């Protein structure tokens, strides 16, 4: 066993150590609990970076240990380029959210549990990206759900949080069950739970079974991605959850759906079998994009506006995946990363606005620009970023996604409509921005300064966004490598 292989489980074990410390340390103050959380999450960030050399050399790092041998289930983890991108995104977002949470008022009580659950949430996502065993995958997949539901229910806003948490759990669970059906079918047909073995063999299944599984996988993962008809859990869950949880939910967890699509149906089955679904994925993406944007336009609650924009952005990702072309999928992967950054930033801005004004209704807020110029700048960059303004990241991914749309040859009209539909993002973005930062100053009682503990991480993320947008080469390179396993050298 090489040292790399021993390092790999550390990504999941170190947060687990943090969780254990937090569970034992009952009277930890919020600051101390947060520091434990940040340190263990930081370790989880360092390991994948340390593994980069091994990844460059071998293309993937494996770790495997028997767990339930008589069912062919093992504790096997695999770090590939694809998982690296999602893993780093998710861990970074969690770190930022944890740092941001220090400036928030939530989680003062039982803060050790709060940070333990945040760590578990992140752990669920890292496990999802890493696991090379379908049983393990599903366990992490559900862990992420359970942890987030608990966070919403215990630390959410208002009495509505219980109902919202339940709705979130049940609807997402329906998706999970659909995924589970496919996973078990795979397991039953090949008698093993190892994903790498399944990937090699899955294309030998009868074609009807493959089509059935692809559709179930897609629908199941779309629930997680909050695509139009099944997005109903998203706005409520995002609104009610405490801000750090919202950041993780929107920026990292939604994209786990995209990861699932890439890791399961796309990797398992030959692309020509997925081809019949391409147009439906693209249409669903388009509908979701337009619908999310319209809802964001209609919404009055500023947190929900940004929440609905996630529905819209996930539409782009699904569209990119649905093109089934190299560029489209690269674009989708890039979009995941950029969307994570921008969305985290926008939610952080919203958090500051709420902290400063104690208001959430957009008509009750106005004219903040003069008093909070830095906040205004961050918000402007966020809004421009999400509407695909060139030097900022999302332009890069949208470029690739739409290029993929034309490459796919499915329908020029569809791609053109999607492309023109993206102007709607600008419409709701500018409405949000203009209403909040322009006009007469509202409400009357404003805080004097925006809280620094919230502002600094926001600025850091903003700078990171600009940097990432200008230098997408590394990321693009990773995305290309991660797709090589799925579609080989098609270009």
């Amino acid at each position, binding site marked *: 066993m090489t040292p790399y292989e021993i390092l790999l489980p550390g990504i999941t074990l170190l947060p687990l150590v943090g969780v254990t410390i937090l569970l034992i340390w009952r009277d930890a103050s919020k600051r101390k609990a947060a520091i434990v959380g940040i340190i263990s999450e930081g370790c989880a960030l360092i390991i994948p970076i340390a593994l980069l050399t091994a990844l460059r050399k071998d293309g993937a790092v494996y770790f495997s240990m028997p*767990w*339930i*041998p*008589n*069912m062919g289930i093992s504790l096997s983890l695999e770090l590939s380029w694809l998982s690296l991108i999602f893993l780093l995104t998710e861990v970074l977002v969690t770190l930022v959210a944890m740092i941001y949470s220090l400036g928030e008022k939530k989680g003062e009580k039982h803060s050790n549990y709060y940070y333990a659950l945040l760590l578990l949430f992140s752990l669920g996502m890292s496990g999802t990206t890493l696991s090379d065993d379908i*049983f393990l995958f*599903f*366990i992490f*997949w*559900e*862990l992420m759900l*359970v942890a987030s539901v608990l966070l919403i*229910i*215990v630390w959410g806003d208002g*009495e509505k949080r*219980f109902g919202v*948490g*339940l709705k979130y*759990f*049940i609807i997402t*669970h*329906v998706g999970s*069950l659909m995924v*589970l*059906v496919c996973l*078990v*079918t795979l*397991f*039953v*047909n090949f008698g093993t739970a190892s994903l790498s073995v399944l990937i090699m063999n899955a294309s030998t299944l009868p074609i009807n079974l493959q089509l059935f599984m692809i559709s179930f996988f897609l629908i199941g993962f779309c629930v997680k991605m909050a695509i139009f008809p099944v997005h109903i859990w998203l706005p409520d869950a995002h609104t009610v959850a405490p801000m750090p949880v919202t950041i993780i939910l929107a920026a990292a967890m939604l994209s786990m759906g995209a990861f699932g699509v890439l890791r399961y149906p796309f990797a398992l089955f030959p692309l020509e079998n997925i081809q019949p679904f391409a147009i439906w994925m693209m249409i669903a993406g388009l509908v979701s994009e337009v619908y999310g944007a319209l809802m964001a336009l209609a919404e009055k609650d500023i947190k929900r506006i940004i929440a609905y924009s996630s529905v819209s952005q996930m539409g782009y990702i699904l569209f990119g995946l649905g093109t089934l072309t190299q560029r489209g999928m690269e674009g989708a992967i890039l979009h995941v990363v950029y969307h994570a950054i921008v969305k985290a930033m926008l939610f952080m801005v919203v958090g500051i606005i709420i902290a400063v004004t104690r208001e959430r209704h957009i008509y009750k807020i106005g004219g903040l620009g003069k008093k909070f110029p830095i906040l205004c700048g961050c918000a402007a960059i966020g809004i421009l970023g999400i509407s695909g303004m060139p030097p900022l990241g999302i332009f890069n991914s949208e470029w690739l996604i739409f290029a993929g749309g034309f490459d796919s040859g499915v329908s020029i009209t569809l791609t053109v409509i999607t492309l023109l539909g993206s102007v709607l993002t600008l419409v709701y973005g500018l409405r949000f921005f203009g209403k909040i930062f322009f006009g007469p100053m509202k409400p009357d009682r404003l805080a004097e300064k925006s809280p620094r503990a919230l502002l600094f991480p926001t600025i850091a993320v903003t700078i990171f966004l600009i940097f990432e947008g200008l230098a997408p080469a590394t990321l693009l390179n990773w995305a290309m490598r991660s797709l090589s396993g799925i579609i080989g050298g098609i270009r």
Partner: protein
Amino acid sequence: MNTGTFSIILPAVILIVGAFLVYLFSRFFRLRNRLIAILTVLILTATLVSLVMLYLQVPEFYHSPNNFFGLSEPGGIIYRPNALGVFILIVAIIIGIMITLYSAEYLSRDPRFVTYYPLILLTLAGLMGMFMSTNLFNLFLLTELTTITASALVAFRFQQEIAIKAGFKYLIMSSLGTMTMLLGIYFVYRSTGSMHLDQALAQSDSFTRIGAACFLLGFSLKAGIVPLHTWVPDVYGHAPSAVSGLLAGVLSKSMLFILPVISLRLGMTRGELGGYLMLFACFNMLVGSVRMLKQSLYRRFLSFSSIAQTGYLMFGLGMGYYFDLDQAFTASVFLFLVIAVMKCLAFLSAGMYQFYSGSQDIDGLRGIGRLMPGTAFSFSVALGGLAGIPLLAGFTGKWLIFSVALVTGDRFAILCLVVFMISTLISLGGYLPTLVKQYQDPSPEVKELLTRSPRAFRVSHWMLVPVDVLSLLVIVMGVYPTPWINLAENIIRWMLI
């Protein structure tokens, strides 16, 4: 005269003798509740040890003809152990130990604890006989023993009218079930001239088949198969929680394992039996999960969930018979173990709530997590396990059932699987709100309790220990199911069906 191996009958002897001893001791020496409980636990531990010894001998018995106790000549009674039966009995005894420990505190407010422990011992003894006896009449008597003792236990709180009603209902319905069995015995005897199962197998005709039907009905009733489930909510909902835990966790579920043994010996085909089980499994799953949704009393709620769980188990067993799959049996045995632990845990935790807060209302659970955080945790583990959340035992069980159903690839099985999934989903709507309620803002009653004692209740260790052990088991079986699955596989390998 052939007495065979005495070790086969030893556990039952210990139980029965123990029951009388406990009764006499507590009468004469006026022992306190806790002392009797400890005494009972000792007896149960002895039984457990002897059963484990028996279990270890099972591979030997498998190969030797001398694997029974009793008279092998006509009219003689024969006890013959099989691996599955012994395993189920071990589970039953372990659950019995748990509830006895639990009762040491739970019964501290009841006056009639003297009869309680012997009744539990006798119930378990009856169960033990049922799994070993190969004589139909003997089986009938033992079933009756279990029924009567159990109904006495159900109606244990005789001051409460509803408890008496529940006990009465259980008694009447179970007796009707056993009466049907008696009818069945008549048919079998008329046809074969013997009441021995092995002879019945040799010459089965339509009369024995009618007899099989009678037995099927009787055991279905005892297992709580829809539409004969109507006694279940009343009984589990109003019996003492410890008794509910025993009944729901082990007693009624184990009937599902006796049922096929008898019916197959009496000439039913595997296909018929499997079809029956799978068909009614669907009803069980649907009825249980739908009616679970809007219950106002949490123990009644748990009993409907028990009906649904019976359905899952039936589904697994049914597939095993219908498609002749060993995997299905493995899955069912594992699921049985899991359900026994989870169900018992759920009822015991619910009993703790009732014991300390005095309310049975599901709305009274609101905010109770602040009063009893430990109990809230174990109740959550139980509900989460029942709902099938990964890393808890229930998920592994469901995964197994799932995979078996897909292995068959049969249309009927897939249809049942769909029902299974729908039922899982619906039941989420039942489990989760209940789970969440514990952490919500407190209800008026809980508020009142909170004002009276602002700190959390000091829960008795007598109750806490079994509950914690069971919660730990649920988690361990979820996280590391390998040994348990291995166990189930071994049992199926040696099973004498």
